């Protein structure tokens, strides 16, 4: 990736946020979700986005997120209107047997898969049109249904070609999304082709395919041979090896993808260049793993304290406890259930939080800090356009739980 424009100033992108700040936002959000029966999640998402946006400083000026929680809430209510019929269909299918149920679930699955494309595009539209930089808003045109159809047809082609067509799909969808993006009155442009990402993808594909073929061959030869008892351990080692290689290949792939795809993005004469290294990405993942282990130990310790308390009481019981004494240990049924659900929710929130703070923020920071913009001064002439049509929340995207940031 060589930058052909030598004229013009190269601007830097920085990220000024700290993990602790995001940690605080998320913790407060999860705590407030308890008394609000989960409704606070729309506010939490809004606070989280503000954090990401306002700490991403491009050429000295931060992005600004102008969306609010109410928009997300309303969008969610709209999405419910879609999910009610799906629920009724699910209900009907749960009373059916055999082929009808199978076909029915299949059809619903396909419909949801199709709508996911629509939801993703709308969600991107929502976020872009609520992003401000230097007082000028971003926007996204294009048709979400067209995007959903393209994505759907490409995914069919993916199945038919066993994933070999992926670079072409990736390029086509990137082009559609980027070319329909606007900064004020200036259009984005994506100049890549399928070749942009073909190299890393096929390298990864070939390595994994050879490994998988090796495992299959191993099973085939061993299964035919006499020593079938060694097959189990050998196969286990081979599969673990495969997963490890696939994991490393994924980091290589994600870093190449970010580097090459983002670096084909232009806004007028200004061009983005992004450098993300695989080992930096792996570093973030290692941090994530460490944090995960830490959280697990902490949670087990807390659970252990509860358990020890119960066990101590259990040991203090007479040799032949009456039912009443035994039952008293568990308190009333309500306390038991509350502890069970509370413990589960705390665990769920803790793991989601660690994932966001280390993987989500880690990736964002790497992309932001690895980015520069050539001929940034050409952006000073961008003018604002008229108000965008009002977009209702993220609708489906919120309900389907897509859209990472």
């Amino acid at each position: 990736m060589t930058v052909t424009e030598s004229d013009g100033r190269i601007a830097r992108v920085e990220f000024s946020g700290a993990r602790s700040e995001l940690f605080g936002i998320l913790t407060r959000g999860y705590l407030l979700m308890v008394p609000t029966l989960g409704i606070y999640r729309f506010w939490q998402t809004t606070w989280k986005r503000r954090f990401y946006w306002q700490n991403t400083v491009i050429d000295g000026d931060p992005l600004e997120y102008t969306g609010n929680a109410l928009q997300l809430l309303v969008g969610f209510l709209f999405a419910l209107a879609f999910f009610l019929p799906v629920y009724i269909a699910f209900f009907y299918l749960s009373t059916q047997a055999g082929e009808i149920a199978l076909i029915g679930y299949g059809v619903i699955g396909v419909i949801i898969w199709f709508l996911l494309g629509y939801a993703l595009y709308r969600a991107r539209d929502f976020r872009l049109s609520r992003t401000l930089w230097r007082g000028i808003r971003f926007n996204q045109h294009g048709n979400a249904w067209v995007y959903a159809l393209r994505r759907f047809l490409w995914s069919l082609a993916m199945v038919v070609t066993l994933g070999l067509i992926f670079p072409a799909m990736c390029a086509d969808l990137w082009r559609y999304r980027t070319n329909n993006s606007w900064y004020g009155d200036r259009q984005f442009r994506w100049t890549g082709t399928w070749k942009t990402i073909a190299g890393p993808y096929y390298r990864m594909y070939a390595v994994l395919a050879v490994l998988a073929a090796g495992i299959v061959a191993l099973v085939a030869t061993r299964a035919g041979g006499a020593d079938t008892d060694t097959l189990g351990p050998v196969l286990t080692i081979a599969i673990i090896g495969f997963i490890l290689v696939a994991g490393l290949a994924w980091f290589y792939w994600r870093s190449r993808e970010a580097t090459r795809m983002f670096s084909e993005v232009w806004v007028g004469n200004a061009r983005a260049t992004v450098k993300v290294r695989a080992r930096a990405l792996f570093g973030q993942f290692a941090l994530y793993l460490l944090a995960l282990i830490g959280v697990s130990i902490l949670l087990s310790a807390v659970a252990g304290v509860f358990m020890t308390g119960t066990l101590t009481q259990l040991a203090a019981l007479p040799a032949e406890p009456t039912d009443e004494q035994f039952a008293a240990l568990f308190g009333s049924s309500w306390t038991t259930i509350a502890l069970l659900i509370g413990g589960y929710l705390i665990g769920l929130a803790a793991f989601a939080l660690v994932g966001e703070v280390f993987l989500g923020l880690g990736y964002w920071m790497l992309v932001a800090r690895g980015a520069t913009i050539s001929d940034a001064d050409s952006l000073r002439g961008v003018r604002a356009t008229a108000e965008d049509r009002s977009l209702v929340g993220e609708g489906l995207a919120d309900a389907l739980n897509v859209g990472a940031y």
Partner: protein
Amino acid sequence: MELTARYTDGLVADVRDVICRLEPEGTGQAIVITDLQSRDELDRWNAADVFPLHARRHELRIGVSGKPYGARLSFNGFEPARDATAALPALAVKHRQDRGKQYRLVGLATAALASVVAAYVVGVPLLAGSITDAMPPQWEEGLGQTVVAQVEQALKPEAGFEVCDTDPNSLANRAIARFAAEVVAGTGTPFKPDIQVIRTKIPNAFALPGGHSFYFSALLDKTESADEFAGVMAHELGHVVHRHGMEQLISTSATGLLIGFILGDMTGMSVAGGLGAALIDTRFSRDAEREADRFSSDAAKRMGFDARALMTLLERVDKDDGMSRAFALLSTHPLTAERKAELERLAAPDPNATPPFTPEEWQAIKSMCGAPANTPIAPVGPDKMNRNR
């Protein structure tokens, strides 16, 4: 006082370093924005119309109403931000207003959701009943067929699943059929009860949607009197008549929807959703058990057997312990002690009624599966298995 800031007019992406100065204007004050270098006046903002925006630490970012949407002033650094906040009292007022508005919104949304939950908890048992009545019986029969196949598939390899007496005209089968017909007579149920005694190691009895009911040989081995047998069968037929299987399917689906709403995961795949759903669903299930107990006890009164025998059998196979009390809310059945008390309150058999089975019939039923060859693998109480899932 003069403060340096970054300024955009919201029309062009040309950000500038500026100096802001407060000047009296009309009855209030104006922020006069001048270019840092040329000192040309760029804009004037009414100081009462400014509002604060969210920004990173040590940055004060403000907008103003009445100007283009993206018009912004940004004061960078701790001191400039603090000084600007002090100089513009409108910011604190707007900040308070916005915070109040967000609090009200969260409160309102929570209250709305809470009332949905309340309406659900109160309404669905009622609603599930009337929706069930509207469901075509053939549909429920089809559902029952599916479950029969599933039960058979699940039990066959481990515990066995084999009809004990395949001759419908044998003494035992005729007695059971006559008993079942009498129990449901006059209830107006669209289903024809069909009770089968199955050879399997699990001590259980249950009813499926559409009228199919099973009595397992391992439970029959533990059944000591005709009244016990009649009580359990009448209880299961109570589920059939009240269409509890269908009702539960409806309430489970509705619970899934509600939990999805709370957790925002409409795909309904999360475990938390499952646990919450179980908590609510089992409440309906316990209500259904109580209803079936009442049905059994009514039948007992009518047909002259002792309704309390059901409990005698239940106690023999199923004892309450501390664990089951602790998890009572997650149990699909009321506690044995509670059911016993309720049945004893209801039971008062008609002394003039003829017993449901003659001694010969009861002997025939008892020996349907041959001698009690199999020892039960686990002391599972009657009807512990799910009826329809």
